[in-house]
């Protein structure tokens, strides 16, 4: 949005020089939240409109934040406090890690975290390799490139259907194998398109110069293209990682062996379906109240996303995401 310094009739408007005429509350507001960018021609909204808007904004923000905060703080609360409060605690009076100690000592939960971490790390690395090489190969005219591009774009509009996918995974002998959670997800058409349009933006002169000097495509990709593409690789890597961490459907379809369950399956069976993790699964005799354990399981699934979110958010610039939607 452009900031206006003069009106169309040439009169100067409130700019930095007019700051001193602002009231104290306005200056405090500006200090806390950044300066207002209201263009000069725009009238101040009426009081009812401002109140209604503020109400909507606050309500939306609270509806997103409160559930997460309640779950996180209940997972740290002591058993007595949860009991007194009727199940949910906003401020734990004497925080305890008992619930986390319990779930981490449960072989089932502990192994599921291992499975999810393995799937996320290995899956993301593999997916990045596959996507980067395909995107680089198709970022310039190459024999068969147009055909391959069409073949990829079709994947955006159709899906093979879940029965044929299941039979394929079964045919490959991947049922009840951790690779069934990884291999079907190593190539996502949308991520490919974002990556390819970034590679296409790299000036041809750079790669052509290297080619004249005798470098092959492997070398150009490694020494010229990759170092220039760190940002887009970070974004796409984060997208893949979030996808692998969250994937639940593949596990439900392909994994029946509980010891290979990822965190999302534990979350479903323990929190949503209310199946109790029996004492021997938990590995302790005296378990803390189930409520805080439930909350701790939710937090285990939630925490990686919330921790990685600030990095993801850095790249929400319009270009990276919306630029590719129409391409």
């Amino acid at each position: 949005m452009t900031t206006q310094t003069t009106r169309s009739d040439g009169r100067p408007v409130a700019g930095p020089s007019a700051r001193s005429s602002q009231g104290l509350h306005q200056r405090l507001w500006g200090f806390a939240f950044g300066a207002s960018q209201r263009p000069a021609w725009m009238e101040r909204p009426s009081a009812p409109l401002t109140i209604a808007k503020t109400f909507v904004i606050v309500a939306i923000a609270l509806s997103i934040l409160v559930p997460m905060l309640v779950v996180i703080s209940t997972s740290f609360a002591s058993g007595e406090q949860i009991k007194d409060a009727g199940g949910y605690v906003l401020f734990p009076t004497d925080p305890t890690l008992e619930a986390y100690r319990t779930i981490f000592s449960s072989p089932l939960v502990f192994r599921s975290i291992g499975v999810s971490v393995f799937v996320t790390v290995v899956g993301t690395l593999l997916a990045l390799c596959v996507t980067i090489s395909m995107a680089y190969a198709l970022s310039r005219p190459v024999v068969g490139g147009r055909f391959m591009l069409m073949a990829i774009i079709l994947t955006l509009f159709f899906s093979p259907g879940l029965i044929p996918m299941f039979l394929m995974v079964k045919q490959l002998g991947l049922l009840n194998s951790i690779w069934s959670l990884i291999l079907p997800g190593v190539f996502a058409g949308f991520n490919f398109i974002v990556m390819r349009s970034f590679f296409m933006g790299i000036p041809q002169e750079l790669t052509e110069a290297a080619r004249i000097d005798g470098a092959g495509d492997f070398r150009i990709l490694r020494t010229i293209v990759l170092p220039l593409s760190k940002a887009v690789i970070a974004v796409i890597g984060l997208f893949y990682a979030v996808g692998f961490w969250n994937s639940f459907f593949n596990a439900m379809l392909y994994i029946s062996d509980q010891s290979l369950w990822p965190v999302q399956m534990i979350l479903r069976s323990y929190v949503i379906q209310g199946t109790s993790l029996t004492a021997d699964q938990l590995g302790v005799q005296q378990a803390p109240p189930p409520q805080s354990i439930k909350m701790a399981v939710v937090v285990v699934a939630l925490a990686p996303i919330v921790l990685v979110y600030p990095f993801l958010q850095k790249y929400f610039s319009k270009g990276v995401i919306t630029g590719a939607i129409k391409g």
Partner: protein
Amino acid sequence: MPSTRPPRRRAKKPLGVRLRKDWQMLVLMIPGALALLLFFYIPILGNVIAFQDYQPYFTISEAPFVGLEKFVELFQDDRFALALRNTLVYAAFQLVLFFPLPILLALIVDSMMCQRLRKAFQSIVYLPHFLSWVLVIALFQQMLGGAGLINQALVTSGLDPIPFMTNTDTFALLIVGEIAWKDAGWGMIIFLAALASIDQSLYESAAADGAGRFRRTWHITLPGMRPVIVLLLILNLGSILTVGFEQFILQRDAVGADTAEVLDTYSYYIGVIGGDWSLGAAAGLAKGVVGTVLVLLANKVAHMLGEDGIYRGRPQ
């Protein structure tokens, strides 16, 4: 225009020469091509079992061919009719109640003048998009479920608990509410981009001519967003039969199989759980074909209304 295009620098080289020049590029395509083949194109061909009486002990080439028998069976199945009806109802609710939300949200955010507040609000509303459906349902259950936060508060203050999560009559609203919580913020991004591309001087001159806030929104903002709105409407129509598999399967226990049955869950329970692979595949295939036809139709209508739609006449 053809006349200004520079002349072709070189004639097409023979295939052998091009293969030798591009061999490293071709090697780079192999892993991706393999993934596409194994997890997209071969399964697409696997849909042929919808025309067979497939059993797990057959290979696909051995299974007897039965033509459209499975589709006839499908349309005579009451369960399928139920799934289809539910799917259409939920899709209609999503289209009417959810589709406008990201647009409204984008208008609100665009009217926030304070940059830091605006950024903070955007960070908050984008976050739920990155949570898994399992997590979203779990959070909803902890808030709205029978023993959830809100019902605890109602009971403590002497009121009757409200069965938000298990009432079959309001399930469609619950579905829309969950989708709105998860994706309304994220859906807003594309509309914000459209809003940012509207020429600000239009607003200024309209204001100078005495147009108020609502007239400016109606006559400048909404027409400026129209192409994007139409594009997303088409995309939504295409996926209208895909109402959200995970969301329904996760709430099946709470709300009952009859209410939570949609086309995707039907396919799953008939095929993977029930063992009638061919019938499940037929349901999936029917859904896919109808979805494709809907996209093409909607795109055609958009062209007739003078919009760009998904693809323009000329390939890029």
